[in-house]
């Protein structure tokens, strides 16, 4: 089994008496697209900065692509797009990429090929000679994304990559993430747009008060079905009986709700209700959205 792209244990950051990150323990497999979710102030950005070596942990440690956190050696193979990508505004788009490429050790034809390819990929080839201060917010975000992809990194950190982008720009980011995944690149994604996370990530971690409170895969098997029933009456013992089909059975106004593992439970459930002499008017099952899970975990 290959070593994880990223593995940290009990990472902690304390600013005086304030705890920004209490206990960050997680592991991200190589080639995985990992979503890092949490409300504002949960410590996501500080956590990401500790992983990148921008902020020194107060305690704990870990490894990034096999090297201890904070080592320049590991940074050779990572890319980073900060939430608010700031740059030297007096540079031209192409110059910015060439400058960052040189810091990565790229030069000559390899640098030119990488820069031109990325400018085309983020649809800024024609704006490459324009000064960055003339770029729109979306263009800035896209040039920032190109900067993060220089040197074909093995691990890419994206902090709110769709911030400021229109629907087409968001689609571009989504496509880029899919391409990265297809290449086997690990992506560590921090985003508030849960619908984006839902369609791009393999796995997510929820962070609250500076610690990971839940990790889950976004594969269908990992997500319960929410079943909604409307019946003509609720005789004594019905709720208890429903609990044998699933969990979290509750009365919600005129409806009964419960969670079941998969769809194969539903025929048996409807037969059992008929056997109880209960008239069934409505039965609907759906997967819970990431937003609902987020609210349940964080809310």
């Amino acid at each position, binding site marked *: 089994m290959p070593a994880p792209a990223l593995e940290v244990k009990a990472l902690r950051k304390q600013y005086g008496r304030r705890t920004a990150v209490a206990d960050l323990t997680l592991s991200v497999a190589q080639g995985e697209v990992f979503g890092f979710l949490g409300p504002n102030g949960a410590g996501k950005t500080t956590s990401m900065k500790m992983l990148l070596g921008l902020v020194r942990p107060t305690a704990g440690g870990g490894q990034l692509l096999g090297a201890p956190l904070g080592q*320049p050696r590991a940074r050779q193979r990572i890319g980073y797009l900060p939430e608010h990508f*700031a*740059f030297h505004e007096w*540079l031209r788009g192409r110059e910015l990429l060439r400058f960052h490429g040189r*810091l990565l050790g790229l030069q000559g034809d390899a640098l030119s090929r990488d820069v031109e390819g990325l400018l085309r990929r983020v649809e800024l080839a024609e704006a490459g000679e324009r000064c960055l201060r003339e770029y729109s917010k979306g263009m800035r975000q896209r040039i920032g994304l190109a900067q993060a992809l220089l040197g074909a990194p093995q691990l890419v950190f994206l902090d709110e990559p769709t911030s400021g982008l229109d629907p087409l720009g968001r689609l571009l980011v989504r496509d880029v993430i899919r391409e990265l995944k297809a290449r086997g690149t690990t992506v560590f994604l921090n985003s508030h747009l849960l619908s984006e996370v839902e369609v791009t990530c393999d796995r997510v971690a929820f962070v609250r008060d500076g610690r990971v409170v839940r990790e889950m895969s976004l594969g269908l098997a990992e997500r319960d079905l929410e079943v909604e029933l409307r019946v003509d009456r609720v005789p004594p013992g019905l709720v208890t009986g429903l609990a044998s089909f699933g969990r979290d059975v509750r009365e919600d106004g005129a409806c009964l709700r419960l969670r079941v593992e998969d769809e194969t439970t539903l025929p048996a459930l409807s037969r059992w209700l008929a056997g109880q002499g209960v008239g069934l008017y409505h039965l609907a099952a759906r997967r819970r959205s990431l937003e609902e899970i987020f609210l349940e975990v964080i809310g």
Partner: protein
Amino acid sequence: MRAALVIARMTLAEARRRRILAAALALGGAFVALFAVGLHFIARDVRAHATPTQQGFAFAYVVLAALYAANFLIVMTSVLVTIDTLSGEIGSGVIETLCTKPVSRWSVALGKWLGCWAILALYAAVLCGGVLAVARLVAGYTPPQPWRGLPLLLLEGTVLLTLALAGGTRLSTLANGVTVFGLYGLAFIGGWMEQIGTLTGNAASRYLGIGASLLVPSESLWQLAAYLMQPPLVRDAGMGPFSPHSVPSPAMVVWALAYVAVTLALALASFRSRDL
């Protein structure tokens, strides 16, 4: 070191693209041109009415006054060019993507220092070289030992540049500016205290001045440069404002060089250990 050179080149490119270099060089050129015109008229009068000895006094005084002004501009430029280079990029977040590249933090800070120092050296060369060239061409005068005096002016700028870089690793741009100019002010008034203390035989005042010079050795470097670049007759007469009564020891140069090295090392360590 490769990364430091990339950052230094970037710092130079920034100064060029943001017209810092153009403004400094254009106004430096204007400074030299104004000095040339002024010296031309002074030289015409002096040659008509003064003895050769008096001419020597007059030219030495005027050229040193120009170098004093150049020294002041070098001090200002060394601080202004450097003051925002790290703190500005830390404040704006630009530094984050640089420091997540496979480069050491120290090489980022060293690259900034090298870039700013190159700008300072170019500026000092234009100003001081211009003053010396004009003095030679217009008045036929060259101050003594310019090869020893002028590097001291550059060293003085380097001291303040390094302090500004060190401050920028922890302070905001404005706080850094106030701090570095405040330290320069301490050295400046300390230099005067030392001179007045020596002149009046007041040991306390003299030692106070020496203490300030050790804290920030900028003013004493100017005093030593001014001493070296005056004709012996002028400086020994002690008549002008540029004739020091207490000549800084050559050990002060060693102290200033060590001061730059230690301050730079502290700046690199401070930048390396801070959170971004």
